[in-house]
């Protein structure tokens, strides 16, 4: 089974690196983009299987990136998972309307992130682990 490629779009280099280590350990290939323009360029060039997009991007936020992806015939086929530090209530509807497959609020628990990625990529779900002391989403 060939490795899937995930494009991470986030302006925080630490968050990008953290995601790469975690996703590589789960057998995904990871590429980066730090802002809107770079994300469109990378998507065009590398045709990733999935885009994980942070809404809080500088100069032209995540929503405008989604608009541009939707506007392009081939790019609009790439599924997008939106992540944000902002609240669900305020942004989830808008994100879903813009075409996102899921909305995740930072910080995302690892198990949840991986489960959503597997679902969006059409991969079978892993058996659920028992819940440990868990306050909030972590």
């Amino acid at each position, binding site marked *: 089974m060939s490795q899937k490629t995930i494009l991470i779009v986030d302006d925080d280099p*630490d968050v990008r690196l953290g*995601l790469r280590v*975690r996703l590589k*350990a789960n057998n995904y290939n990871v590429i980066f983009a730090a802002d809107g323009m770079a994300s469109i360029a990378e998507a065009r060039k590398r045709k990733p299987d999935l885009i994980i997009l942070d809404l*809080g991007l500088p100069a032209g936020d995540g929503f405008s990136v989604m608009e541009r992806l939707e506007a392009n015939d081939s790019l609009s086929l790439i599924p997008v998972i939106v992540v944000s*530090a902002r609240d669900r209530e305020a942004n989830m509807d808008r994100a879903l309307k813009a075409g996102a497959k899921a909305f995740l609020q*930072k910080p995302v628990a690892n198990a949840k992130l991986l489960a959503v990625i597997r679902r969006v990529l059409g991969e079978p779900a892993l058996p659920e682990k028992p819940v440990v002391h868990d*306050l*909030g989403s*972590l």
Partner: protein
Amino acid sequence: MIEKALQVLVVEDNAGDARLLREMFSKEKPGSFELTHLLRMSEAVIRLANGGVDIVLLDMGLPDGHGLDTVRQAHAAAPGVPLIVLTGLDDEALAAEAMKEGAQDYLIKGQIENRALPRALRHAIERHRMQTETDLIRTDQMKFQDEFLSHVSHELRSPLTAIYQFVTILLDRLAGELNLEQHEYLQIVLRNIKQLQSMINDLLEVTRVQAGKLTIELQCTSISDAITYTVNTLQGAATAKGITLSADMGCRLPSTNADPTRLQQILIILVDNAIKFTPTGGAVKVQARVFEEDPGFLLVEVSDTGCGISPDMTERIFEHLYQITDPGQAGRKGLGLGLYISKELVARQRGKIWVSSEPQKGSHFFFTVPIFSLASWIGPILMHEKNPGDAIAVLAVEIGSRDGRLSPDVRKEKSHLARRLLQQCLRPDTDVLLPNMDSAGVREILFAVVYTQEFGAEVISERIQRQFQHCEQLQTADLTLAVSHSFLAPISRVKGESTETFVEQVAAGIQDRINSIRLQRSI
């Protein structure tokens, strides 16, 4: 500068007193005051409601008014207009009470000096203006504070994300092996990250409460589920501290009309607190039963054998800036906002929360939740006037998937969307979208009750279908949406039957229909 004449409303039924007042005003410069004199409170209220009055001189001994009540009435009719009360010699105590109710000043009839009246009026108006301004400044400040707090809390989540990511990478040994000590210390870091995460969430919750943006989605939901979830979630923490955590729920508790997520939130806050304040060897227990004092509610109790709370604090602990300052509370972490948030959540779900406790004797926290009643949801539409041929129909929208498996996340999202569209197709007085009453099934069915004619139900069904077709997210390949409706046999009202009984009957009929629709679909 020509000042506009001050519009003074005098409400005084005693002719002699009124004449004296008028004489005092006549000594003033012409055009500085314009007097309106009324004799009864009822007339005054109408005049105030019409607007344009700058200040009111109110006699508290009016024929159709009762002392303080006249002050309240005047306030209600014109909340922005300052008030001076007129009292007799032996009524100073009453006058003082009037000031507590919001009067700016009081004047004792027969003791008003020359030129004192207009001065008193001007002062009252000025004082009122300053008060309004200060209130506005305070509101603005609070709004700024909330927005600032909200912005900061959101920003804090980004670095928290990075910290969490790398600590878990290390803990999962993705960067190499760990010795026992390193593993232990990293666990401590992770625990504190979760603590920080919790504090940020609490902060944001509080800003939402202050800004009136707290979202509650009422549904028919089980309190037992919420209690079970809470006990499972916090069992680990209790055991780690050597505390027994147990639940005791009456058999077959009725469902509640509440937000399941919020119920969990309230219970987690209360049980987490109980564990924090109970020493090793103690016990925390969660119970639920029908509330004896009001059978329309369930009573939930979280009790512990911990250090207790002194009686003078039992109200104050629900305030949001309250924190325990007792130095004996080692390991007391958190912002202390939990009880404030809980109080707000309980109130928004129409319940009450309180505590019964004594130092060293443990605490008993209680809160009430309304019991779900279909009757309360459909009552309003039944009160609507009936046209001949109108009848009750149950509309069902079934959300399913072609391969029969819908993940809970996706189901929730689609259901949310479908609900919103469905709500838009219903009419406000005669139709009602029922809350989510069953989240256990694989198929999600939304129910609405419409009060209409045969063709009316078809029109609504078609409208719904069209809305769904135009919604891209509901037109995904594997999603199925089925809209159907069925009319109830007409239920006529028996003579002398109370409205309550009638509504209960109709509700029972609707519940039956819903049950049979569910049964059919699950085959």
